[in-house]
């Protein structure tokens, strides 16, 4: 398929969503309607979160989707990016790199961490890699929580450098309303970086290295026989994904203006990102994006509204379990189970992954043959 042909496929749904995302802050009709109905939705702010998680899901897709390296520690690299942003920008430390410096430093440090943890562990068998990355995430979280003198514990390092706001935007937003201008710029910076990452990865899928990732996922032995070096290629995928996750972390910390409580970077978060990827479709860029939009959108936009509606209905007699958040993990867990059972390739699958998941090569992984 030519590059031009492959772009044509994208023009339908994605172009519409992109257009919506680009134009939304100019005409925030959902928020205007919500304000009129006396609901606080703040879709413009929630969308920033969705963009950041979209970047994170795309990052995980490089490792799990393309290269088939099941890792459960993506939240750790996210956290490393956020912490790096904190360290290089807050007053407490002597670096003061500012926003742009942090955008470079965070992915660099996260990539180094990826190399550091990946180099000794990527040769391990698949399920061991999952456990090692899970363990790494837990170790990192424990360290961040306990080294309070360095990380400022649950409050997080703050204030993190604000996003750079060009003068004309400040004027556009009206004098004295810096916060509004900051939110607007944050929105477009996050969107721009997400789009840039997606374009980059779309191109990468068609380069030597991108194809090498997929070849390795499909059959490591055959790929090695064709002269690929599995160790180096896996490491490249792992470090590349880690760098993107670190970038997402930098945006996250900048958006919150703090590195936040380290428990934000725990296993549950890693699973949430994995959920998005599996729901959307492993190895599929549009799947990763739509998975993030659906799941994070549901979790961040719809579920607070749902909870509010239930609380309004129940009044004072609300049972502690009568809220969505008490059933959240039930929903995510069941979604994972159902997807694996009925549609392991996800809602918006990559063609090749779908084939792999439905017709495993003979004798590949299943220890037990069908009876």
């Amino acid at each position: 398929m030519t590059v031009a042909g492959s772009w044509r496929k994208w023009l339908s749904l994605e172009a519409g969503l992109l257009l919506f995302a680009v134009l939304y802050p100019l005409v925030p009709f959902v928020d205007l309607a919500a304000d009129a109905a006396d609901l606080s939705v703040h879709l413009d702010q929630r969308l920033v979160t969705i963009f950041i998680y979209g970047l994170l899901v795309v990052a995980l897709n490089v490792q799990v989707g393309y290269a088939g390296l099941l890792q459960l520690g993506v939240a750790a690299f996210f956290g490393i990016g956020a912490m790096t942003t904190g360290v290089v920008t807050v007053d407490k430390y002597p670096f003061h790199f500012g926003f742009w410096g942090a955008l470079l430093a965070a992915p660099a440090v996260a990539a180094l961490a990826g190399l550091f943890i990946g180099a000794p562990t990527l040769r391990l068998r698949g399920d061991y890699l999952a456990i090692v990355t899970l363990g790494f995430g837990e170790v990192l979280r424990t360290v961040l929580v306990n080294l309070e003198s360095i990380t400022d514990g649950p409050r997080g390092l703050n204030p993190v450098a604000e996003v750079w706001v060009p003068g004309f935007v400040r004027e556009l937003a009206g004098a004295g309303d810096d916060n509004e201008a900051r939110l607007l710029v944050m929105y477009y910076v996050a969107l721009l970086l997400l789009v840039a990452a997606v374009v980059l990865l779309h191109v990468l899928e068609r380069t030597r290295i991108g194809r090498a990732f997929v070849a390795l996922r499909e059959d490591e032995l055959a790929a090695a026989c064709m002269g690929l070096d599995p160790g180096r290629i896996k490491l490249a995928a792992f470090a590349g994904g880690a760098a993107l996750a670190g970038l997402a972390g930098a945006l996250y910390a900048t958006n919150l203006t703090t590195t936040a409580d380290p428990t934000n970077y725990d296993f549950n978060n890693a699973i949430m990102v994995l959920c998005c990827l599996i729901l959307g479709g492993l190895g599929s860029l549009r799947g990763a994006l739509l998975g993030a939009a659906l799941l994070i959108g549901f979790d961040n936009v719809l579920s607070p509204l749902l909870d509010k509606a239930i609380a309004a209905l129940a009044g004072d007699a609300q049972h502690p379990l009568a809220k969505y958040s008490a059933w959240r993990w039930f929903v995510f867990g069941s979604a994972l189970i159902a997807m694996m059972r009925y549609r392991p390739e996800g809602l918006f699958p990559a063609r090749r992954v779908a084939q792999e998941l439905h017709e495993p090569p003979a004798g590949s992984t299943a220890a037990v043959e069908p009876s």
Partner: protein
Amino acid sequence: MFETIAQQLLLGLTNGMVFALVALGYTMVYGILEFINFAHGDVFMLSAFFALTLVGAWGVPGLDGATLAGVLLAIVALTTVFGAGVNWSVDRLVYKPLRKAPKLAPLVSAIGVSFVLQNVGLVWGAAKMEVFGGGGQPAAPKSFPALLPTTNLLGGSSLTLQVKDVLVIAASLTVMAGLYVLVTRTKLGKAMRATAQDPQTARLMGIDVDAVIGATFLIGGGLAGFAAVVYALYINTVYYQMGYQNGLYAFTAAVVGGIGNIPGAVLGGLLLGLVRALSDQFIGAQWQPAVLFGILILILVFRPAGLLGSTAREKV
């Protein structure tokens, strides 16, 4: 100093017994299916909730003497059956349809099951019973009544060896001995070992591999149920997330001993219990996850086969 260490070693030994019992469930399933049953720790957690429910329903804290002993035995037996039943049902409903699928599918499903079971635990925590604190705060830890005698067997010594320590260690050793006999001396055990070695050949020899896998989940779940009662009686706190961390520690124990290796799981469990007790004492309890998962990472990187396991290559 010496006494502190001795006391911590004793604590570690008792904790290690629980780890070992849970680790056995991981290792037996892995030995046969090459599958990390992520939800195993949560079967352990639900079993503890089940035991607490029985304690509340039967008004156990008011009993004493022979009645108490009898009721406790009944709780142990029923919870073992409960754990076995849950584990077996999960396998039949969720994992079994995925036996032919690529490895990713059952692993991700198991993560899903783990979250579903945790949510069940959260909901169970809202039970309107006195032992659950009235159910007003589902997520809060519930205290499990201290039912085992705490008399110090060492009388005047400053070292304490309570009756409950001895009971926990003796009961765990008995169960492990029973498992050893089952695996090495019975026909089912032979079938399990054969299936672990080579499922296809085992099938050709007339072994019902599906039944063997079912039995493995039953036994593993039973061990987790038994361990849950032991843990609850010993630690006296249960909460809906206890399965996640204890399960991962137990999995670490299985890996340390050599995953798939039954004596290895026991050895790994005991070692991990000892390390945890010493690190809590000398490094600080808040560093516990870092120390134990650090060990897990080091073992997997430098000796992936564990202490007793033989070097296993991934089946290509």
